[in-house]
């Protein structure tokens, strides 16, 4: 696996714009613990090793349990997540694999049962934002620090 460009150095303006989006998402009022689960699940699907390492570490620092974090990739089969978290994880999977799922009515209905209109849009932006970071980190092969 060959090294690629350092995107922070290559286009400071681009990363500044994406960081501004991230800051905006964090201020929209969604629960931080929910956002970490969403970020982790999207990063798993997109195969972003750097992002998985970062968000599992961040979630642990914020008090998330190891058992729940291990359960995120198989959340449908675990009793660890609330109905609101399950709706958010289902929507995350739908939107992350958009070209395959087309954001089906069943997942939208789950979402609408747990989130108000504003929260649905805010969550969609959060999912879009982690998908953006995943594209940078996977696209340019950003690696987690060695153990």
């Amino acid at each position, binding site marked *: 696996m*060959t090294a690629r460009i350092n995107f922070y150095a290559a286009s400071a303006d*681009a990363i500044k714009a994406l960081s501004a*989006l991230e800051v905006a998402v964090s201020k*929209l009022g969604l629960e931080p613990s929910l956002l970490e689960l969403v970020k982790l699940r999207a990063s798993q*699907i997109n195969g972003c090793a750097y992002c998985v390492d970062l968000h599992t570490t961040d979630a642990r620092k914020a008090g998330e349990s190891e058992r729940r974090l291990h359960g995120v990739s198989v959340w449908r089969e675990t009793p660890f997540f609330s109905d609101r978290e399950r709706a958010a994880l289902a929507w995350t999977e739908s939107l992350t694999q958009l070209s395959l799922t087309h954001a089906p009515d069943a997942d939208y209905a789950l979402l609408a049962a747990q989130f108000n209109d504003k929260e649905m*849009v805010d969550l969609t932006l959060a999912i879009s934002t982690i*998908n*953006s970071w995943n594209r940078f980190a996977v696209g340019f092969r950003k690696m987690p620090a060695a153990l």
Partner: protein
Amino acid sequence: MQKRIDYHQASPEAMSALIALELAVQRSGLDPRMLQLLKLRASQINGCAFCIDMESAEARRGGESFRRLSAVALWRDSVLFSAPERATLAWTEALTQLGAAGPRERAYDAMTHHFNAKQIADWTLAITSINCWNRMGVGFRKTLL
């Protein structure tokens, strides 16, 4: 098709953040015609009818030909696109379908033949931005004007 919410009305805060990202893409100095092709291709892959309708109309207003727009979905088999356009379209496909295939080495290598590091990062931001809009457009079934 079930009607869904109007995202601009539901969360102006979220949408102003996304508009700011789009404006940053537009200011980054990328070729506007290639940018339209990229947006169209990502929207085709993600199945965003609203986005395709809007981006193809914008491309036509920007002087793009109908024949080239009609060929974007099958650009690999077309002679109508330049080498830098082909590199950008391949990178768009690799990043838009990230989970499916992962960005192929060849797609990245082709980008490095035609663009400098800043331009590659800026094209990548453009691809992520249209992917955000596609998620809004499809996620909330935005209807055509």
